[in-house]
């Protein structure tokens, strides 16, 4: 029913914009990753794999990448452990208060990310809220130093930030489960535990996969929380990229690392999409 002209008019402008501001920049990043920097600090347009070789040969790069993935994995696990039971509680037990609780989960999402990371810093610091509280109640004499400037602080803060992201798709998946399935399982004599593990949990897997992907991908690329709270042992791969684009001035190497992250993220998205399809009913 829509004419060719209509379709062209709605398609062409966004297509053009997306090409210029998304597709071309990604391609440019791809090109940069093969170039190099001359001693005179100019970009040399030589096409070789030197940056990728550096990435795999120099320990600090691949070790930091692995450590970032380990941090992201811990954030993912904790977000799911916090988010899943919460979503399950809201969906099945919160009754009339469901709406209120739901909004309560969403609200912290809208306090600026930076500000929440900063708030954790004021809580965890050696003269911060937590340490002075612990001294106040005579739990400890000296401030606990491991709380701030450690991978612990980064994992804690990122878990705080990404738990609602893990919660949302899980909650959506649980809400989509037809309630008569649960009743049928109950009527046929299944125990609550059996109903959960044989009916509810399998049907919520697409949500779990989506939530896990969110938490993992977004925390993997984070660089502000590690800068604020990580200290030297909490450095993540994006921090290296930031320094390569800043003081260290090696854009091509930075582009190569970014591209590896991009490839990792995109393949995870494809994987999670396939897993979600595989496990979805309807």
């Amino acid at each position: 029913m829509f004419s060719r002209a209509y379709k062209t008019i709605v398609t062409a402008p966004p297509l053009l914009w997306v090409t210029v501001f998304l597709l071309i920049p990604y391609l440019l990043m791809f090109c940069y990753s093969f170039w190099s920097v001359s001693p005179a600090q100019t970009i040399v347009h030589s096409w070789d794999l030197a940056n990728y070789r550096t990435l795999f040969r120099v320990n600090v790069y691949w070790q930091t990448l692995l450590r970032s993935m380990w941090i992201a994995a811990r954030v993912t696990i904790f977000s799911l452990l916090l988010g899943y039971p919460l979503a399950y509680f809201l969906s099945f037990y919160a009754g009339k208060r469901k709406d209120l609780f739901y909004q309560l989960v969403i609200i912290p999402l809208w306090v600026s990310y930076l500000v929440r990371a900063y708030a954790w810093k004021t809580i965890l610091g050696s003269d911060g809220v937590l340490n002075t509280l612990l001294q106040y109640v005579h739990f400890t004499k000296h401030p606990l130093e491991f709380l701030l400037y450690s991978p612990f602080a980064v994992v804690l803060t990122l878990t705080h930030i990404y738990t609602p992201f893990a919660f949302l798709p899980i909650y959506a998946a649980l809400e989509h489960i037809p309630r008569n399935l649960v009743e049928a399982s109950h009527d046929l004599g299944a125990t609550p535990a059996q109903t959960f593990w044989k009916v509810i949990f399998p049907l919520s897997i697409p949500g779990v996969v989506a939530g896990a992907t969110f938490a993992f991908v977004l925390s993997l690329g984070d660089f502000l929380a590690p800068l604020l709270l990580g200290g030297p042992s909490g450095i993540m791969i994006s921090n290296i990229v930031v320094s390569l684009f800043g003081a260290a001035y090696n854009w091509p190497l930075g582009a190569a690392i970014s591209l590896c992250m991009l490839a990792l993220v995109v393949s995870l998205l494809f994987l999670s999409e396939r897993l979600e399809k595989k496990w979805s009913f309807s």
Partner: protein
Amino acid sequence: MELLVIGGLSPIPRSRWLLAHAVVVFAFLYLPVVVLILYSFNGEGVGGFPPRHLTLDWYRVLFQDAPIWDSVFNSLQVAFAAMVISLTFGVPAALALDRAQFPGKVLFRRLVLLPLILPGIITGLSLLMLFNVAGTKLSLLTIVLGHGTALISVATTEVFAGLQKLDRAQEEASLDLGANYWQTFWRITVPNLKLPIIGAALLIFTLSMDEIAVSFFLIGRDNTLPLEIWGRLRRGITPEINAVSTIIFVFSLVAIVIWYRLRVRGGGGDRDAAGTEIAEAAEGDLA
């Protein structure tokens, strides 16, 4: 216990644990927010327990702090311009995905939605390279282009969800009765999509006000508010940052409550559906 019986299930002993777990998670989610707000009134600085000498001094300092208000003004301008760009391209993109077939449509859909899930550093850096190659000087304009591009995804998901519920017959009738596409678009399509569009606009505005990862790489001489705060965090922290964050939080909260009410109304009063849609929007699920 009444709370635990509702929902068509018999009471399960584990529900007590679930309730306790929920309380713990909420405490974890709200602890930093409460600390942030509480210590904005603390005369003794950002740390220390218990908070002492409650005062409004930090708010007074804040109101005389010109650089902060300059950055707030910059952020408002950026958020408004980004909102215009995202809607200008995001609404047609949703229409295109809904109604047109063209080569590369799948790639286009994925590209549009990618910034929703991609870490901001990649979006920021790839645009930095573009502006570098094009010789564009970094300024608030480059941040606007960055936010505008990244947030098209939000406009597209919201409007696409609205289009799925739209009654095609109305548009068909309008065209049959002799209205042209332009008239049909403005008189039928847009009014029917009013709620998703307003919702998207609020969401984009709030997200842009808070955005830092993309702005971090595209910043010129003038700071946005998050970058101004970032700069101060590195110099040493005072409750003034708590104060400005508290004010922004209150404003975001109002915007989000309005957005949520709109979504609930847009869903025809179906509150659960609204919740699910937000999750789906967050998921970028346009299959």
